């Protein structure tokens, strides 16, 4: 099966394309085909994973070239894939969570007339994401990278009739493109400096011989790409808008898989980052800033999906931070990525279930948490699974999040006290906003709108929730005995442990304490005073809340610095093109016309004038002849 790993990409790809061109007849079974394709991919991935597991440690990497993609002169790119421990984990995550979300979507999208198309896009996404993680060449990775961007664009804008959805989709794509510029430039730099874009060769060479400046440049450019895809500051603005997409999309793409691609990229390019301390520092800074910014936003949003999206930003910030810590953090970054994939997908799907249950008479899901409350009883399964995800994300001891976050904070302290402190603070805030979310949604008194009748979602939606909840709880087993560090060692090298001033368990205790404080604070804040059905107006809330609601003014900054100048520039250029560039052309033509008009004045139309000029002309000729002869 290891030789056929490429099938995990091809199966959903073929299914996706087939579903797209399949006519109306496909509507009846389209969703099933899509789900089966994703499940088949998962099975192939699982079998391959098991086979890989069975191999000796130093042989856990299968690489092959399918065909030569591009070859011209010195430029050579193979359509090559590599199935190694890192990509194997990702394949399982993507196809596993992906399949669950496919199943969930069968129920969630049951009443959408374009469900077949939705599943086609989901399949395409899975294929692109798998291409991304299996690629053995940066350009092939870029292919998947943009492929997931496209799928994300299509899925965010799936409900195209909503202008907000279409705008959000465009925004996501464009901001991703900004990151892609970095990616593309990085690959060009690889070609110029190293003559290849093969991931293995590049990392090996950069780690070995290339100058540090090259490594730094590559690192920073890749980081730019990662920022775009993973919604890290300063390219974070698209993620919250992306919640316009159907909730399964938010769960799969904007929580579990695609947005973590940036982390994958950094970890995959460990050779480059290890050789570029500056770039690593940049990664840490970006991670930290995003961690706190995301948490801040998460605290203020009343839209359940946006609150979760803020949380996603924040958690990816953790991963970035870990990835930026170098060998000390790579494995934990991936570990947190996996556990986050479980519990965040779980919670997003739970949120979708809530929205589904809270749908008003018009069928539109309600996302405002201020209209929720007391859903514990109305939607028990959702509450239970969501609660497990909640415990996982805040890092309740024993749950998966506890292990993964703990490890990262520990590594951060190992790097620097201040970084650790910031990460610790983030954990506290995470506990605060997640508790707030839980309280507002499930436990506080009901604040439902009229005509809303909350009900539990159908089985097809709750089963994936249960599975994901179980994974959220149990995900922590991966770290037992340092398994994940060991497993990833062939890819990211041996894990480095910094000696801390205090024993590791002290850190764990402190983290748990901080989390407890956050939970308590939120509990006190949101249970003591009743929650209003409408949010307090902006002037009535603190500056911090206002900033959080406005997503830390990221859109305003983009607007002021980029969008508006570009718009003005465009207008000016359109004007100049018509007046100056084309004006010169037309002006030249006009001057020629004027000259002709002037030269035309002797043309009176009177035949006698013409005759006169003929006579004068012949007189001149005769005189000239005379002059010539006589001279």
């Amino acid at each position, binding site marked *: 099966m290891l030789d056929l790993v490429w099938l995990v990409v091809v199966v959903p790809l073929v299914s996706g394309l087939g579903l797209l061109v399949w006519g109306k007849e496909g509507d009846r079974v389209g969703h099933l085909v899509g789900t089966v394709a994703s499940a088949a991919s998962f099975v192939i991935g699982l079998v391959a994973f098991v086979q890989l597991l069975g191999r000796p440690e130093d042989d856990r990497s299968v690489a092959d070239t399918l065909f030569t993609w591009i070859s011209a002169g010195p430029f050579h790119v193979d359509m090559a894939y590599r199935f190694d421990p890192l990509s194997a984990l990702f394949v399982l995550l993507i196809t596993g969570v992906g399949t669950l979300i496919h199943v969930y979507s069968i129920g969630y999208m049951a009443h959408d007339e374009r469900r077949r198309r939705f599943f086609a896009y989901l399949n395409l996404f899975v294929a692109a994401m798998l291409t991304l993680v299996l690629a053995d060449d940066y350009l092939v990775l870029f292919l998947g990278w943009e492929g997931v961007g496209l799928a994300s664009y299509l899925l965010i804008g799936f409900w195209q009739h909503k202008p907000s959805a279409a705008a959000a989709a465009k925004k996501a794509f464009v901001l991703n493109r900004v990151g892609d510029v970095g990616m593309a430039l990085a690959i060009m730099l690889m070609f110029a400096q190293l003559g290849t874009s093969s991931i293995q060769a590049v990392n090996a060479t950069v780690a070995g011989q290339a100058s540090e400046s090259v490594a730094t440049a590559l690192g920073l450019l890749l980081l730019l790409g990662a920022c775009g895809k993973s919604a890290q500051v300063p390219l974070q603005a698209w993620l919250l808008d992306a919640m316009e997409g159907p909730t399964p999309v938010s769960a799969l793409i904007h929580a579990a898989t695609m947005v973590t691609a940036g982390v994958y990229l950094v970890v995959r390019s460990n050779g480059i980052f290890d050789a570029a301390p500056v770039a690593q520092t940049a990664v840490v800074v970006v991670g930290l800033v995003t961690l706190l910014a995301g948490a801040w936003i998460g605290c203020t949003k009343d839209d359940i999906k946006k609150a979760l999206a803020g949380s996603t930003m924040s958690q990816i910030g953790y991963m970035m931070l870990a990835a930026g810590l170098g060998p000390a953090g790579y494995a934990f970054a991936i570990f947190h990525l996996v556990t986050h994939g479980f519990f965040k997908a779980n919670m997003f799907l739970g949120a979708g279930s809530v929205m589904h249950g809270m749908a008003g008479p018009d069928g539109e899901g309600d996302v405002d948490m201020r209209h929720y409350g007391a859903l514990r009883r109305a939607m028990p399964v959702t509450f239970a699974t969501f609660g497990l995800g909640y415990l996982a994300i805040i890092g309740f001891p024993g749950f998966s999040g506890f292990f993964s976050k703990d490890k990262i904070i520990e590594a951060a302290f190992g790097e620097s006290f201040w970084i650790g402190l910031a990460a610790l603070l983030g954990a506290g805030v995470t506990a605060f906003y997640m508790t707030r979310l839980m309280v507002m949604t499930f436990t506080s008194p009901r604040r439902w709108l009229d005509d809303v009748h909350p009900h539990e979602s159908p089985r097809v939606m709750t089963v994936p929730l249960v599975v994901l909840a179980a994974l959220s709880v149990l995900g922590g087993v991966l770290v037992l005995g340092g398994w994940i560090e060991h497993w990833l060692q062939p890819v990211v090298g041996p894990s480095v442990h910094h000696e801390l001033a205090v024993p590791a368990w002290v850190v764990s205790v402190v983290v748990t304490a901080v989390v407890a404080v956050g939970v308590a604070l939120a509990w006190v804040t949101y249970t003591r005073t009743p929650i209003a059905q409408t949010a307090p107006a902006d002037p009535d809330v603190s500056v911090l809340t206002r900033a959080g609601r406005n997503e830390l003014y990221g859109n305003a900054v983009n607007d002021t610095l980029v969008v508006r100048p570009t718009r003005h520039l465009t207008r000016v250029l359109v004007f100049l093109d018509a007046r100056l560039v084309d004006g010169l052309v037309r002006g030249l033509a006009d001057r020629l016309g004027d000259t002709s008009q002037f030269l*035309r004045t002797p*043309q*009176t*139309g*009177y*035949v*006698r004038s013409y*005759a*006169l000029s003929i*006579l004068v002309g012949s007189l001149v000729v005769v005189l000239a002849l005379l002059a010539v002869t006589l001279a």
Partner: protein
Amino acid sequence: MNEYLTLSMILFTIGAVGVLVRRNAIVVFMCVELMLNATNLALVTFSRQHGTLDGQIAAFFVMVVAAAEVVVGLAIIVSIYSTRRTTSVDDASLLKL
């Protein structure tokens, strides 16, 4: 010899000036005829000067061509007159645009 040629030149000039100053298309045409005749005179004169008849032949051809020209020209004048009720060449000035 020179006097014949001089006469020819004078007639030619008179014809040319006539074309320029007269406005009646028919008169203009006559002036053109005058110019042609002036050249004919010159041709006949040169024929005698050189002692060959080629000049006279040329004059003969000029006459034929002039006849053809007159036929067509007068037809044009008549058709212009029938549409515009005028024979003034100045009234037919649409050529400018």
